[in-house]
């Protein structure tokens, strides 16, 4: 079982340092602006801001955000659109909250200061409550990591709380491959807060992880034109009463290779039952790994390695280091 070959190529933001300001609201504004900036800053196929609201005005494309000072609750939101027309809407709606929406057919419209542009749109709500991310009252700093496929099909934003190996929260948007026929817009989004004790995908706190797939929902919708949003989870081969990683082994004892399990999208709600796509280039690993572990360099692709966040291995730069301490 050789190391998997990458299907896509990537850009990264690694270990970007965000020391706490001492104010939870300010820290959240700064992370929101970091997300805004990262999405639009990629070299290849970045997202574009197509609509926005700051503290005083809104529109298409609107005023945009030039710094975190343009971000406040409940006024500020933005809509970013990728090169496939998929739109992501982020709304900082309350002091310790935020709401994130995904519209795979890019149908957001309208909107005003303090009111995101949901009029007539086909969208899924990735997250709408309890978004008290980066609880700075704990006085911990943060490092931001982000991964972007250069074809624009995958983005993940992974703020990592320094010193705890916890991903504070996570936003991911992905185009699934080998989609079931009938799934016209095979995009799913994911967003999860950590709030200190939660586990943003990818189950960032080490030592937990047998049942993440039961609880963490990706959201999408079946097709444009009014089908209801549905939830999905991602899964891999499982056996026995636990997950594939139950054995807490990092290496297959016969092959001597790293245990890396391909992931699929599995729908478990009405309108979206079944296995209907796979997630390229992200693998589940066993609980023998911990965040920050790097899996061996692939000699055939020396430009990257695999980096473990929680229970997953993501493609990573050739620099194997993930900084999890100050």
């Amino acid at each position, binding site marked *: *079982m050789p190391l998997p070959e990458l299907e896509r190529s990537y850009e990264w933001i690694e270990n970007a340092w965000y020391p706490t300001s001492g104010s939870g609201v300010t820290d959240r504004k700064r992370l929101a602006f970091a997300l805004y900036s990262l999405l639009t800053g990629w070299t290849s196929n970045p997202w574009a801001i197509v609509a926005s609201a700051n503290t005083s005005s809104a529109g298409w494309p609107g005023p945009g955000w030039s710094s975190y000072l343009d971000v406040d609750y409940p006024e500020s939101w933005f809509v970013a659109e990728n090169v496939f027309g998929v739109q992501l809407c982020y709304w900082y709606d309350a002091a310790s909250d935020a709401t994130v929406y995904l519209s795979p057919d890019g149908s957001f419209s309208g909107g005003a200061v303090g009111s995101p542009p949901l009029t007539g749109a086909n969208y899924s709500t990735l997250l709408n409550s309890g978004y008290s991310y980066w609880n700075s009252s704990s006085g911990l700093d943060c490092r931001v990591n982000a991964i972007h496929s250069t074809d624009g099909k995958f983005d993940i934003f992974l703020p990592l709380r320094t010193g705890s190996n916890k991903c504070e929260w996570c936003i991911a948007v992905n185009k699934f491959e*080998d*989609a*079931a*026929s*009938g*799934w016209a817009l095979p995009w799913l989004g994911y967003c999860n807060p950590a709030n200190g004790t939660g586990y943003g995908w990818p189950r960032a706190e080490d030592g937990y992880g*047998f*049942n993440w*797939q*039961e609880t963490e929902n990706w959201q999408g919708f*079946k097709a444009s034109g009014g089908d209801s949003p*549905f939830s999905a*989870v*991602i*899964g*891999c*081969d*499982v*056996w*026995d*009463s*636990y*997950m*594939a990683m*139950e*054995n807490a*082994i990092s*290496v*297959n*004892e*016969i*092959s*001597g*290779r790293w*245990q890396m*399990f391909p992931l*699929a999208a*599995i*729908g*478990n709600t009405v*309108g*979206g*039952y*079944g*296995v*209907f796509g796979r997630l390229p280039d992200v693998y589940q690993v066993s609980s023998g790994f911990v965040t920050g572990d790097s899996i061996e360099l692939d000699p055939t692709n020396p430009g990257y390695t695999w980096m473990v966040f929680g229970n997953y291995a993501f493609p990573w730069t050739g620099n194997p280091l993930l900084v999890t301490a100050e």
Partner: protein
Amino acid sequence: MALPVLEKSWEFELNHRITYPGGSAEMYNATLYDWKETWKGWTVGGATVAGSSDASASWGWGTDYWTSPTFPSNNNPWIVLNLNGGGQVMITRTTTSYVSRLYFSPGGLFTGGGLNTPPTATDQRTIWDTYLFGTQTWAVDCVMQYWHSIDGDCEIMIPYLGNNQYGILMFGRLANAVENWEGGRFYLYNGVNNNLTYSTLNVGSPFRFSYGGTWYTAHGTGLGINRSVVSAYNNQAVNSFSGRSPFPRIGLASKDAGARGWHGRLVDVFWANNQAYPTGAFLEEDVDHPEFKWIQIQALALPWDGVETELVTI
């Protein structure tokens, strides 16, 4: 997500009825004889007889002395079959009329033996040692279902007794077997009636394989989301998007120290949806391959020929 395309070519002996001859011991013999004849008789890649004993007059290597189903049932008749996919199986009747034993030698090492003495192999593994498929009572008609891949790698046998399915015997070879495991051979045996369930095959560990001279247990894995394999969709008849029957693959994984990990997948046998379809249901036909169908037998989807129109169980 189209129907899976068969990776192997198969021969079938389906709905193979063995009529109850009037005595349990005789029925037992008739079933063993039918099994042996079927495995020998495949058109391509069938088993050959390494040696045998009729326990009354003749025994020896290289000859099949089980020439009829009337051999003594309680004086240690035995037969060793060479499997085309590698290894040998030995069937014995022991000295008790309702007891049989099945052994497997992955190295094909059975040797010795005599008229009333089964041979032995240094690597032999006992698959069962009491009742044929776990049941003493073979006093009704039996319907056997046999599958054989013509490359000899896979043999599957599922018996039905009086409408009850008595487990499964499967010898197979994994696809995508991990490196360093030469062969990738395994067997699956379950002798509990009507028990081909996810729980039995996944939570349980009825699979066995030999690696480095040691036998390990293994679980049948499935693409799932939590501790209940495919539970999110196994009560759904079809994929909401494709409208197709789901065919999740079955992997093989072990958690026995020394061979832990996921080691490969079964070929042409899939998880089926036993909450949406009953045993005997034909899953979608592949319009490109009218010569075969897919049939559901409890939690498994198996290839089926294009001839037999139903799964006969009694």
